[in-house]
């Protein structure tokens, strides 16, 4: 098990018109092994950029990311990623999708078969394993994505709004599933979301980011993720602190959004 160290990351890129954008400024984070951290912020605060840097898809202009004692230079199987949608391979069956990581490592059916079937059981897709991806509903597809990521046994799982495209009911079920998987596997998870409720329910640690330049605005330590494991999430929402924190964060984000709007109007 390993955490992720983000040291003084800045991201700045040039625009074709000669200007430049400061997407992230001086972000420092230390994510402990086994931690579930949710990241929240208004649009344009650089949360997806931060995740892409952590995954190794983008190189930061300054600072470094370290994991297992080495600097992250590119994507690697130690950091799994769950995308919002469209990342599954339509030309493979559900089971082949889940077995993709082990197969790329050169493992054969005998080596990965049991684990893949177990994961299909965990996400409740055992009956659908021979189906084609396009025959599944959106919620099922995201469960395949989760299982595929876990089958590869990464140390850190990066989630980029994995439940963003799902309807409210499916979303609640999936949130419970994420919590369950987190507790059972003990993986380090970074979850990006634009839903305050989701960030509160799933984040052991919650990061609110502010835009222009993208930076860490406030950090919370929350009890709800632990409370939610094995429990109805609606019960958790009745917790007195839950609503209080929710209102506080909502007000914070509203302020940021208004500030952005005001600034845009001044510029205009």
């Amino acid at each position, binding site marked *: 098990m390993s955490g992720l160290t983000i040291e003084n990351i800045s991201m700045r890129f040039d625009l074709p018109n000669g200007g430049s954008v400061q997407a992230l400024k001086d972000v420092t984070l230390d994510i402990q092994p086994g931690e579930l951290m949710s990241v929240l912020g208004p649009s344009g605060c650089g949360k997806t950029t931060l995740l892409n840097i952590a*995954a*190794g*898809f983008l190189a930061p202009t300054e600072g470094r990311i370290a994991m297992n004692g080495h600097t992250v230079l*590119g*994507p*690697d*199987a130690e*950091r*799994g*990623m769950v*995308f919002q949608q*469209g*990342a*599954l*391979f*339509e*030309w493979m069956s559900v089971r082949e999708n889940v077995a*993709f*990581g082990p197969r*790329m*490592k050169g493992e054969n059916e005998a080596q990965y078969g049991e684990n893949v079937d177990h994961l299909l059981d965990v996400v409740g897709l055992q009956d659908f394993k021979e189906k*084609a*991806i*396009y025959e599944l509903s959106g919620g099922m597809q995201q469960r395949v994505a989760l299982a*595929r*990521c876990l089958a*590869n046994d*990464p140390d850190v799982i*990066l989630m980029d709004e994995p439940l963003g495209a799902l309807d409210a009911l499916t979303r609640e079920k999936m949130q419970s599933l994420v919590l369950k998987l987190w507790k059972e596997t003990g993986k380090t998870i970074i979850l990006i979301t634009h839903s305050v409720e989701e960030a509160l329910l799933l984040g052991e640690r919650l990061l609110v980011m502010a835009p222009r330049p993208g930076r860490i605005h406030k950090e919370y330590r929350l009890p709800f993720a632990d409370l939610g494991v094995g429990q109805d999430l609606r019960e958790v929402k009745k917790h007195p602190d839950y609503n209080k924190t929710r209102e506080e964060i909502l007000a914070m984000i509203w302020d940021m959004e208004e500030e952005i709007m005001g600034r845009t109007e001044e510029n205009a």
Partner: protein
Amino acid sequence: MIILLIYIAIFVGAFFAVKYITASATPKDYTSLKTVTFGDESAVRPNRAASIISVTSIFLIWAAFTGSNLIPSFLHAPAAYTGMGEFTYTVDAGGQTDDATVTVNVHEKDADGTVPEMEPGDGFAKNDAVSIVKYRSKLLRVDQNDEQGRDAGAKIVAVNGQAIAPGGEVFTDFARVAMTPKGTLNIVPNTGWQMEPIWLPPPEDVAKRVGDIATDGFRNFTLWEHLGYSLFRVVVGFFFGALVGIPLGYAMGLSNWFRGWFDPIVEFMRPVPPLALIPLVIIWAGIGETGKIILLFLAALWIMAIAARSGVSGVNITKVHAAYSLGASKWQIMRHVIIPNSLPEIFTGARVAMGVCWGTVVAAELVAAEKGAGMMIMVASKFQNTDIVLMGIILIGVIGFSIDVLMRWAERILVPWKGKS
């Protein structure tokens, strides 16, 4: 014009007939319960009865207007006149008039064409006789045998009792009789509404030709050799085009250098119609197999390269990112993500390329070839063998259609996920 009107009449008539017959029998499936159908493309399904009637009526019209013996004769359009016909003409020689009869034998081209024997009759105008081949006309100097002819100042003033003057004409029951400016009668038997076989042979003649050429061959090659050679050229040309074009397209989709190097070439060659390359290919490689295959290779190459390139650019970047995060190497990304993801595009390209190749090979054979479907119809047209031309066109159409059906079938089997992501 008449044919078009008949066709429209069948179209409209069949619509109401089918609607009336099937009104009660339509199943109440989901689509049939839609109330908004105008503008909803998915609610438009081809009416199979219309398809059958459409194809049948084309053959029916073809048969009716060529006097085919495949259909009962009451369905035939009025045929050209054959048999004996006669009309009278009146000569005026200085105030004196006399009548005489002209007997006309309108006969089939290869049937008995004897000129009927006629009594000269009384009066100074004598009876005449002439034989005319069906669909043709003949000039007849009816006064030739008269006692007072044109040279003696006699004039023909009427045909069948109707006045006629130079440049005028009279319609009899079997022919149009016109007078030339010099006073000669031009007899044009009625041609009816049917087409002369030299323009449009009846269906059974075309079918018979297929049999004849299939057994006896045409110009030293059997029908199957002609069609087989055309197909062979298409398949080989397409194969090499795909063999070079697909890797080229992948390289252009994956490397800056390849993209920069080949972009101008591909973008320039793509809009050049392959037909425009025929003269150059003939100069370089002659009219044999090599030239044809080079031409079809060039026709398929750019299409396949562009299809493969857009297949690569069509890969959703999250799929590539996901594969890298799952530990795939570059080669594994190529093998398991980029190639399968680009297959639908490549199949679309292959269908287009096959269609273009088939069109190009026929055109190239029309220009110059020793064998092939295009050569067959070109040579036949020079000898006015319209039945062979029609047969060739129908077979070329059938093969082109079969190629497309085959490609679509292969696509369904090989890339079932097409259009479903």
